[in-house]
């Protein structure tokens, strides 16, 4: 096929990988098809929906807009790396308890956005959470339970304990 494959070395979820791919190979495809980490989902391939969000060297990025080759040597975290083989991360638990996912397709992107956001802003206001979540689109939940999940996760991670919230039901 296309000649001239290049070697790409990435550390993904703490594990080092090396693969020969075309220079135009997208990070999302690299993760999904070369490493079989299919939790990174592709929703729009033009950087709007955020389903493919991963962390590159700790910062959120659209894996559908990045060429794998340009990231040679980088550290990438995908949804599979949030909890690894262990119990769910407090953010994942908070999503579960607040019913913050329905089809679950956009969820990996929201989780990674939340990981970075709460690291940067451990005690956010509801308005700040809403603003941070505009990074990602969800078509099932109407966002309200995601906002609640991020609020709860923030409390849990900052050690403040969870304040009982009255869910709209």
């Amino acid at each position: 096929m296309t000649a001239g494959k290049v070697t790409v070395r990435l550390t993904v979820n703490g594990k080092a990988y090396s693969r020969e791919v075309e220079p135009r190979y997208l990070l999302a495809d690299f993760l999904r098809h070369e490493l079989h980490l299919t939790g990174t989902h592709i929703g729009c391939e033009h950087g709007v929906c955020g389903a493919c969000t991963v962390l590159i060297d700790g910062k959120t990025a659209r894996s559908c807009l990045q060429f794998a080759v340009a990231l040679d040597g980088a550290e990438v975290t995908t949804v599979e790396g949030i909890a690894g083989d262990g119990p769910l991360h407090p953010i994942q638990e908070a999503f579960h308890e607040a019913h913050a996912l329905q089809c679950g397709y956009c969820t990996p992107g929201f989780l990674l956005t939340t990981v970075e956001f709460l690291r940067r802003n451990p005690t956010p206001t509801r308005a700040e959470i809403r603003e941070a979540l505009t990074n990602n689109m969800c078509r099932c939940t109407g966002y309200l339970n995601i906002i609640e999940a991020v609020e709860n996760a923030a409390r849990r991670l900052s050690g403040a304990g969870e304040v009982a919230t009255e869910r709209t039901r």
Partner: protein
Amino acid sequence: MNDREDFTLIGRTVLRREDSYLLRGLGQFLDDLPEPNGLIHIAFVPSPYARASILSIDASAALALPGVIAVLTGKDFEGDVKTFAPEIVIDGYREVRRPVVAVDRVNFVGESVAVVLAESPYVAQDALELVEVEYDPLPAVAGIEQSLAADAPVIHEKLGDNLLFKTRFETDGFEQHFAAADLVLEEEFRTGRVTGVMIEPRGCMACPDPVADNFTLWTTTQIPHIVRTAIADHLGMAESALRVAAPAVGGGFGTKAHVYPDELIVVALARRYRRAVKWVQDRREDLLTNIHAREHVLGIQVAVNRDGIIGAVRLDVRTNAGAYPNHPYSCTLEATAAVRMMPGPYKIRNYKYDVCSVATNTAPTGAYRGTGQPSAFLAIEGMMDRIGRKLGIDPAEVRRRNVVRPEEFPYVNVVGVRYDTGSYLPSLERGLEMIGYDAFRKAQPKDRMVDGKYRGIGICNYTEVSGTGAPGWRVRGFAKMPGFDSSRLVIEPDGRITVYVSQADAGQGHYTTFAQIAADRLGARWEDVNVIEGDTSKTPYGTGTFASRGSVVGGGTIIRCSEKVAVKVRRIASYMLDIDPERLVLTKGRVCDKDDPVKGLSLRDVAETAYSMNNLGLPQGEEHGLEATDYYDPPMVTMANGTHVAQVAVDPEDGRVEIERYAVVHDCGRVINPMIVAGQVHGATAQGIGEALMEEIVYDAEGQHLNANLLEYLLPTAMDVPDIDLAHIETPSIDTVAGIKGAAEGGVTGALPALANAVADALSGLGVNITRVPLRPSFILEQIRKARGQVPG
């Protein structure tokens, strides 16, 4: 059996079991499935023209590219795939058939003119650009008025014009009743063209079975059984030779409740090449070619008396079918939905409608969450406010005077739809109370508030058609829509339970709620119930998951099936315990004497006898096994209801609408899992907000699609959806199993008119008349300028 105690799991929030793998990124969506060896990747060459003759297709450059297997055109499919059409039997319907790949003529931008087969998706994309198609562009029509114009180009020439469907209805003595009222109010409403935009686009993969001459189609569908029937029919295959399975599906919203040409093509190619064939859609293809919806023009005339009571309604609805009928609902779905559902919660006894569906050079339209209802309620709820303004009656009071009152149920509406139960008036009153309606009306200055923004409140009372059975589909001409759903429930030898359901989840939480239902009826732990669905090889036949039917029909059949199995459990336990079966109850994983629970057995004990795993043997005449199958065809429809009340602030400087307060009262009968119902309400309301304020697919007059990307087709974000004050009223159905009604669509139906009415209320002092959605800032600014006499230019 139906006493309250049996509903201990029905009605309870249980956290979802599907979350554990989805949260770890382990969900198996279509593009996540392991790929078979020798997989062929396909891509479609899209038409850049809305209407054109195809003069030639030159694939030589594409074929020269290493890794390209073939390039096929429409003619290459003529031998083995029939042209595509659903079976619709209704007066006024004219059939148009669609080739799965265009032959000689293209009729909308994005229509496939050729298929590239390649060894990798990257190569397939490269090859697309090398296929040279020569077109002769023809005049095109995009809008409804253009399509109906006397000199319009005729899209399907054999028809002679662009009218694909037309029907009418009139009650006895309509004109006299219409003339008898004190005054007539008239308006024309329009809804924008929108689409589902599931975050997972569509895709499918057909795999030959290496053993027999069989195929498996993995596809992102809400209706696997209907897909199987359609493919077998159009490809001339035995249905038994085709398995259609839905993996995890990333949102559906009706968009995935259609059969698409690509699903036929991958199976046809897998059959031809004896290799697995896969196609995954990108977002541009989603917005260009997946089913679009709405785009209704609704002319409405309401004859009303001075007391605000409606005497008669005349409705004229025109819908844009797009270039071809969709499968399986054709171009009649939105048309018949809008006119049949318009009466909603109101006592309209004199009614006349005319409705048509016209062909245009745009993508085919079809089902999307709410189907017909958001448009219909935009019209009738818009008129409620106009009646109030005209007669000086509070708009909430106009609704009170016209609504079907609690003592009037069961009520049969003017087009023959039975409303068995409902809470229309209590729901309205509750919604008004939640938003502080009276206080707002007292405080609201006629003109504007101190901060320079105009404020208004909008109300929508809606009814929500749910759980449609065969009679409901037949009356609208859907000759082959099953209507029923089915289940097979097995108590396994270890006493645990498997339930196979003919539904297909796309995020609704069936794996949890259906387990709750079966467990509830069998007195088992819900954790011990495994739910299997979305696979024609595993479940009995059924209709699928759309049109708010999952809980009513899927839930209903599971309850019936559980009760059938419970009879056998009691029979065998009676034999084992020597207790009359009538005395036995199933509770807490046991079968026991209702008055003396110590006398009992575990489900496992009974299962061991049923499966001959002990020395007890079976009673005389009893068969082995512990299972049942059930087919449940619900009534014509089951009507859920609710009320949305929105308070908005409109900024006249930038035209932005801010939703300040939002109240929803929701009644879907017996609730299975309150958390999941709230999630459905939130999600549907967000989609209604999108449709009311921002979403719209735009075609220019030549049929060019102008915004096939998510930067220009705007979806609501976390900043756009306000906090929702949500209240439930639970008025069980008396027509369905366990009183369940559907819950998935009312949010859209309620939000669209509530927001349009709120903006209209806010701007009414300026003389602005809101008659269409979406209400984007530029449109609102233009209306305000017009009203102030500042029309630019």
